């Protein structure tokens, strides 16, 4: 056995779910009285760390020789870990990787969806006068398309809770943290139309957050998403303020979209081009997963790649999944970045942004940010464009109410409804 490094999550907190970390390794050697770093042996190589079952061979990196190395690991949330290690010949060096967050979620709190309360209707619960729950999570279907200009009405309607929705969890007295594997199901024929679903998180009878839920994204073991939640206190004002994290359990795409949310394109590309990244992409392509395709489209749009190489594919994403707002945003951005003022591509990009506005809220937070930035760019180039100005006002109000660093749109309902209404 050559010298190797095995990456393991440390016991302080679980690096959960498993994630692809980007690893760079440089040999370190003395240079006179100073130290010098050699050329990197690996740059941004993916290593799989954390999650259950424990780490596999995918968490091992083989080194060319024994020696002293500087190892840098970059987490999807933008933090980095860097240390110097000495690896002996024939040794498998155990490298402990702490959780990027001090706040960890205990795995024991996780309950498979099959064991949760039976599916009931919240309207029925209300009618029998049940106490407002400390925490309630519902799956809210969106029957019709909700253009962004009508979002306020849609959110107000959900908040009024007159609708009949599927209850995923209902807890009278919740703890400080909550974890739940989310129900999922196969969607046959995304191209034939799709009923969007939102996760509505309520506390004491009021909807606190709406999360764009890519229902139908199926993981290797069926359910693809876990909802993690925490709050600061069980009493007082803080008691109703839940922080919500919708985590994609797939380590490859989970890492990719987390990097993408921060617009860290280089890292996202690194993950997508790894062997596991390519295999996962191929799997999703085969399964016709439009959500994974949208993530890939954003990556393509933000990357400095040639427009023509992916234009047809992105165009297909827009036309085949007419309910998906993310496709036109991604293609529009690519066209805008490749166009000149008043060119044909410029006008096409403008049309695509308007089309995405009509389709509703994108699934990805990065998409919303791109939409804001694109409309801002269009308006900077042509300050007399009143239509774009109007769209930008609506989109910015939504952007303000969304959690910036969550990969999937996580919409803070009280904040949005508290915003002044545009006249």
């Amino acid at each position, binding site marked *: 056995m050559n010298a190797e490094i095995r990456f393991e999550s440390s016991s302080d907190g679980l690096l959960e779910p498993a994630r692809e970390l980007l690893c760079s390794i440089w040999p370190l050697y003395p240079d006179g009285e100073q130290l010098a770093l050699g050329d990197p042996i690996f740059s941004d190589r993916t290593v799989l760390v954390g999650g259950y079952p424990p780490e596999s061979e995918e968490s091992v990196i083989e080194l060319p020789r024994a020696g002293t190395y500087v190892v840098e690991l*970059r987490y999807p949330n933008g933090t980095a870990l860097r240390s110097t290690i000495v690896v002996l010949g024939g040794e498998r060096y155990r490298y*402990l990787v702490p959780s990027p967050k001090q706040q960890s979620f205990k795995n024991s709190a996780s309950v498979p969806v099959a064991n949760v309360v039976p599916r009931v209707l919240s309207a029925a619960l209300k009618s029998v006068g049940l106490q407002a729950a400390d925490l309630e999570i519902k799956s809210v279907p969106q029957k019709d398309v909700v253009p962004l200009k009508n979002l306020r009405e849609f959110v107000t309607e959900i908040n009024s809770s007159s609708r009949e929705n599927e209850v995923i969890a209902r807890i009278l007295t919740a703890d400080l943290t909550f974890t739940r594997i989310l129900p999922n199901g196969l969607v046959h024929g995304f191209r034939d139309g799709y009923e969007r679903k939102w996760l509505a998180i309520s506390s004491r009878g009021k909807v606190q957050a709406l999360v764009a839920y890519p229902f139908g994204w199926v993981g290797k073991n069926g359910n693809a998403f876990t909802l993690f939640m925490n709050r600061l206190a069980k009493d007082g004002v803080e008691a109703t303020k839940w922080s919500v994290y919708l985590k994609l359990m797939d380590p490859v795409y989970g890492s990719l979209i987390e990097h993408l949310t921060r617009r860290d394109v280089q890292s996202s590309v690194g993950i997508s081009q790894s062997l596991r990244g390519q295999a996962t992409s191929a799997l999703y392509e085969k399964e016709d997963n439009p959500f994974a395709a949208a993530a890939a489209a954003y990556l393509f749009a933000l990357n400095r790649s040639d427009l023509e190489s992916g234009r047809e594919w992105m165009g297909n994403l827009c036309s085949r999944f007419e309910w998906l707002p993310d496709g036109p945003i991604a293609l529009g951005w690519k066209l805008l970045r490749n166009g000149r003022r008043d060119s044909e591509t410029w006008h096409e990009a403008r049309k695509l942004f308007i089309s995405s506005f009509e389709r509703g809220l994108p699934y990805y937070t990065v998409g919303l940010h791109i939409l804001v930035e694109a409309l801002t760019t269009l308006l900077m180039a042509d300050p007399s464009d009143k239509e774009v100005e109007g769209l930008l006002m609506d989109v*910015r109000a939504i952007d303000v109410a969304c959690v910036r660093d969550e990969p999937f749109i996580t919409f803070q309902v009280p904040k949005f409804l508290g915003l002044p209404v545009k006249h």
Partner: protein
Amino acid sequence: MTTFRLDHSEGPGTHVFIVGVGAYPHLKDGTEQPHPKHREMKQLTSPPKSAMAMLEWVDRTLNNPQAPLKSIEVLISEPQALTYTDANGLVAEIAAATWNNFEASVEAWFERANADSDNVAIFYFCGHGIGDGVNTYLLMEDTGAKKDLLMSALHLSAFRVAMGACKAQKQVYLIDACRTVDLATVFTPFMPAQSGLAPGNVFEVFDGSNPVLYSARQGEQAFGEPGNVSDFTQALLEGLTRCAVFRPNGKHWAVSPQELQKAIAALMDDFSGKPQCPADGIVGTGFQIHVLPGPPEVVVHVSLDNEKANASAEISYATKERSGIRMDKAHPWRTFIPCGQCFVEAQFAPPSEFNTTTLETTLYPPFQNILLEVE
């Protein structure tokens, strides 16, 4: 307009533009009638201190043989104008950071930077800032003097785009200001997007080679203790003088924007899992902006893998040059340690259920993490 260290000699040089705004007469508690929509933004005491600290560092310490210092443009707003004596003995009262002064200064700075493609252009701002989710507005002294609150604010994106026309290939922007989203900007998109320069190409794509280093993430606040140098500027100056280095061609220790961003991210990490200054989206090691006179130090975060052991742990390090002990119970413990070989350990007063083995390691800048395994 106030300019120090002006050098008209031929060849590449470094041109620095420093703006610090503490006095805002038209904001809360100012000396003039406050703007009716002042957003609770009030007078600041940290930015003038921070800008002065930056000015002193640039004037006295900045050393880049590839592009020697050739000008420092400065605007600082305090209730009483500040006077500064530069390393050449020039004494000047520093002009206030009003919009008109900014326009005059930025034009002069642009022209000087534009003279040579190998010039290094450094822009530093410390003061009030607000965001709209995409852009950041940097507020000059006379913010609020006109009906439109942001008439005297610099639109950072427009500024950067306008600087795309500048020949200086090496540019870095150091922005020490809040980026919290202001609702006024939400409903009045594209408010005066002024840069003080001729409008640039809005379609220009930045590839990360001329980065903006922010004191806060988008939508978040920046911090500083009143009357003291701000947190970001402290981290910036420590990075510049101690650790944000690489070794170009294996010769000397040079500071680059990229290494600076990593160092600042490490120095400002509050260990919440959400980086205050995310170090991402940057490419390569970047260009040299300063050369250290001697060997660097390393920002080190030492932590124990069992947090329960922390309360009774005495953590310490020892190198050839010096040793240090953790004085409080901060966990992780952040400290500077000289580059090179180092021993780190945690000791527990007997009787104790905990024990660690002394760790021998080699430290390399800009930052490193050390995890001590507790048995």
